[in-house]
């Protein structure tokens, strides 16, 4: 078989993102919407489908859905409605889900993301409200159902099949997540299941106008796995088509539901799609249609907070941050908010960004923490950067101070520097001068280069002095001495 040329193929990806809204109560009952409690404590008679109970729509959930719609510039119809979707399963207390079939609360919309240097506009088909199911728990000799999750409001965001690479899929999904967080509409915790993504994938030869069979990957619980799963699935499909170039494509890849095995790094078939399930949708007679006014929608729109892409553009144009570090900052609202609070106390945005996204993130990684979940206060990070700015400490010392800050979260970096003589830079000119002389004696070429106008040579010499003193010399004094001696 000849070598497969993957670049001849175009992946076509569509995502269905289920986001649990962080409302106080559930979508159709007053039961608390809360994760992690003992089974079956956050339930009312409605959540277990007791006979005689009726659903009452949660207005807070409607508002959050409309906020999302406004955030992605979607159409918010003044009239939307709920439908019953019938299927029998123990986690479904009524044996029908209340969802929105043909008149959802959000129609269309666009998510704008910068991916690999290009600005992409991903099209949303729709977003609808529905209630989550309970959870089956299997024990050694029986199974139980926890209805705490039953009735938690979900918004399902369905993209158009407009995504063409694993990176794009991840960028789109991360932005949807960020939007939800910026709106304070969800905590979007993939491990706890408040953000769940179903990925639909097909491939086709570049230039083909029609879609080939797609498969669905369920239960992806991290963006990393999502990217790996899509990559491996694209390879699998392309390989199948290349193995059978003369076969009817519809018979080569069959539709089905897959999961991702992170150890084997491949997608595993869960079930072949037989006949499409008949959910017997029809309008929910217990709920009147949702009728909104234009004034309500306008009010939601004018009160939207700053959204990820707006913040992205602001960081790049006003703060001159790099695209890469900006992406890291904005995709995690809490991280970006942390950065914003340090920015109020320190003007060097670039340095702050580096300390937050690289230095502290790296130091905290092992403990599984993030800077915003740690006890390191924004004011202390700002102080640290300000000390470097003023030349009070060197970059090298700053790194050691940061180590201490991670070890003793909450401790004032100025105090750390004050209490440790090693962290105080050398200000004694007489002690620094011999080191400067030594470096100059050992580097005649650099002196020549400098005199020939090469600015870089000066920086090199500074570096050599700092190396010799193990970063303890005050950079200001080293500069001064070198400049004087090179005249």
């Amino acid at each position: 078989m000849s070598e497969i040329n993957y670049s001849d193929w175009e992946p076509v990806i569509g995502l269905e993102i289920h986001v649990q809204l962080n409302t106080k109560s559930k979508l159709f009952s007053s039961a608390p919407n809360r994760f992690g409690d003992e089974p079956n404590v956050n339930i009312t008679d409605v959540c277990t489908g007791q006979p005689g109970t009726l659903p009452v729509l949660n207005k807070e959930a409607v508002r959050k859905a409309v906020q999302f719609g406004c955030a992605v510039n979607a159409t918010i119809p003044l009239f939307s409605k709920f439908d019953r979707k019938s299927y029998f399963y123990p986690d479904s207390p009524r044996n029908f889900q209340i969802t929105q079939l043909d008149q959802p609360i959000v129609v269309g919309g666009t998510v704008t993301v910068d991916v690999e240097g290009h600005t992409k506009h991903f099209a949303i088909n729709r977003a609808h409200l529905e209630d989550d199911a309970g959870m089956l728990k299997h024990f050694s000799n029986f199974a139980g159902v926890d209805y705490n999750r039953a009735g938690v409001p979900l918004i399902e965001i369905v993209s158009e099949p407009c995504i063409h690479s694993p990176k794009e899929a991840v960028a789109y999904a991360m932005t949807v997540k960020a939007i939800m967080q910026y709106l304070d509409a969800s905590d979007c915790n993939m491990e706890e299941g408040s953000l769940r993504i179903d990925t639909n994938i097909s491939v086709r030869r570049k230039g083909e106008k029609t879609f080939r069979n797609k498969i669905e990957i369920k239960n992806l619980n991290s963006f990393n796995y999502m990217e790996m799963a899509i990559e491996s699935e694209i390879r699998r499909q392309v390989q199948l088509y290349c193995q059978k170039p003369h076969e009817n494509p519809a018979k080569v890849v069959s539709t089905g539901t897959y999961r991702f095995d992170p150890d084997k790094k491949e997608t595993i078939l869960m079930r072949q799609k037989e006949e499409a399930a008949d959910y017997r949708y029809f309008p929910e007679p217990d709920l009147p249609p949702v009728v909104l006014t234009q004034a309500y929608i306008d009010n939601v729109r004018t009160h939207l907070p700053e959204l990820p892409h707006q913040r992205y553009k602001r960081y790049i144009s006003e703060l001159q941050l790099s695209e890469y570090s900006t992406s890291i900052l904005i995709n995690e609202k809490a991280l970006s908010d942390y950065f914003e609070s340090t920015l109020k106390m320190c003007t060097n945005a670039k340095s702050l960004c580096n300390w937050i996204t690289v230095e502290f993130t790296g130091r905290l990684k092992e403990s599984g923490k993030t800077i915003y979940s740690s006890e390191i206060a924004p004011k202390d990070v700002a102080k640290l950067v300000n000390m470097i700015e003023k030349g009070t400490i060197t970059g090298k010392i700053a790194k050691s101070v940061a180590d201490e800050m991670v070890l003793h979260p909450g401790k004032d970096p100025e105090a750390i520097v004050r209490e440790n003589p090693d962290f105080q830079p050398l200000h004694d000119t007489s002690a620094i001068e011999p080191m400067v002389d030594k470096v100059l004696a050992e580097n005649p070429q650099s002196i020549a280069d400098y005199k020939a106008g090469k600015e870089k040579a000066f920086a090199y010499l500074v570096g050599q002095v700092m190396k010799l003193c193990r970063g303890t010399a005050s950079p200001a004094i080293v500069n001064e001495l070198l400049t004087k001696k090179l005249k």
Partner: protein
Amino acid sequence: MYRLSATALRELFFKGEVSASAIAETFLKRIGKHDPKIGAFLSLFSDRLMDKAWQLDQKRQKGQPLGKLAGVPVALKDNMLVKGQITTCGSRFLENYRAVFDATVTRLLEEEDALIIGKTNLDEFAMGSSTENSAYQLTKNPWNLQCVPGGSSGGSAAAVAARLCPLALGSDTGGSIRQPAALCGVAGFKPTYGRVSRYGLVAFASSFDQIGPFSTNVADTALIMEVLGKHCPHDSTSLDLPPEPYLQKIDHDIRGSTIGVPWDFLENLDPAAKENFLSAIEVFKKLGARIIDVNLELLKYSIAIYYILATAEASTNLARFDGIRYGKRSQRAATLDEVYDFSRQEGFGPEVKNRILLGTYVLSSGYQDAYYKKAQKARTLIIDLFKKAFSSCQMIAMPCSPFPAFPLGSIHDPLQMYLQDVYTIQANLAGLPAISIPSGFNQEKKPYGLQLVGPQMHDVQVLRFAHAFEKACDFSKAIPPLFDEEVNL
């Protein structure tokens, strides 16, 4: 005491001429003596009732304010929840199901100091027109023990007719209050859809179901509607309207008003029933109402529309009865699918299964357009038809049922049984208020019912026309002889 209206009974109690305990005891004794003849009750709340009555007597002695229904015994159809009490819905599936909360109607009744006396028999999950589909017992018509009381609220109708309680609640999805009221010779009122909260009523067909009262006279209907007709935040389809002064308004004259009669629709009516209906129309003429013909020809489709839409809703409403969380769980079941299959097989009776199958079918992909969606469109046409009709009249008069009470076991074909609802279904399709009131007897002394249908929200108007009719002919005073001891003595 049993001959008294609810209004008269509470007056006696207010005045202190009779205690709530004495009332409760009297009616419990009466039920003990007479109910075995008709089988109206599925359960009695004897201890709970005596406790409540005692508390009520204390309340009166202390001079505390008393509710609108103080001391009045009320029975509930056994598809309405009273916390802690068994609610069977006439089904084996819920044989041991204890309600975990009070229905809104239960709460409203108790807030107004009514004495809830027990639960009455019904067709399983309110599906039927004769109460013969109850999994527990047959209920007999107090006027003729060989005949059905009608249904599905047959137990409540029979209980009020036999004067085992002055008031009872039923639910009406396609005529389940009005038809048994007609067959048992009492007043049965189905309010505007959304007037009375459905919270705590076990759903049959959500967009049709409406709770309403049985009483021996229209003033009592007005009295209990003042208690029940309130907005409820737990029912999203509950109307948010200011309280209506039913009692104050029912006495208003109907002189000069216009009543529509869909003569075309009544062509095939049995001659005796027609004669009864015509004499009722004469009464209205004498009261000064003008009678006009209204064209409601589309109504010939209403049974078909109803049995598509109501079964579609029912098939999903009854999906929750699966043996997982409550109710019947088959002992034979070894797998999840068997829990579903066997529990439902054993728990549901044949008519309920028929309707679940029918409803599942009409919603299936490939059939939904031909059945469910078409029926929805036709329902809209019927709603428009009534709107048009009510532009030329204030009230529509029709018979309530095509013939009087029929012998137990005489109708086997479900389609024949469905025809019982031919005159009642439209009010549910269009969400209209409608009442059946006694309009006389046939030669075998079986009662007839006259039906009055009003425009949406015009519940008071319906009661006003009914009240005028009742005052003019007095059929409401008739008591089935078997249950009228004072005469028998």
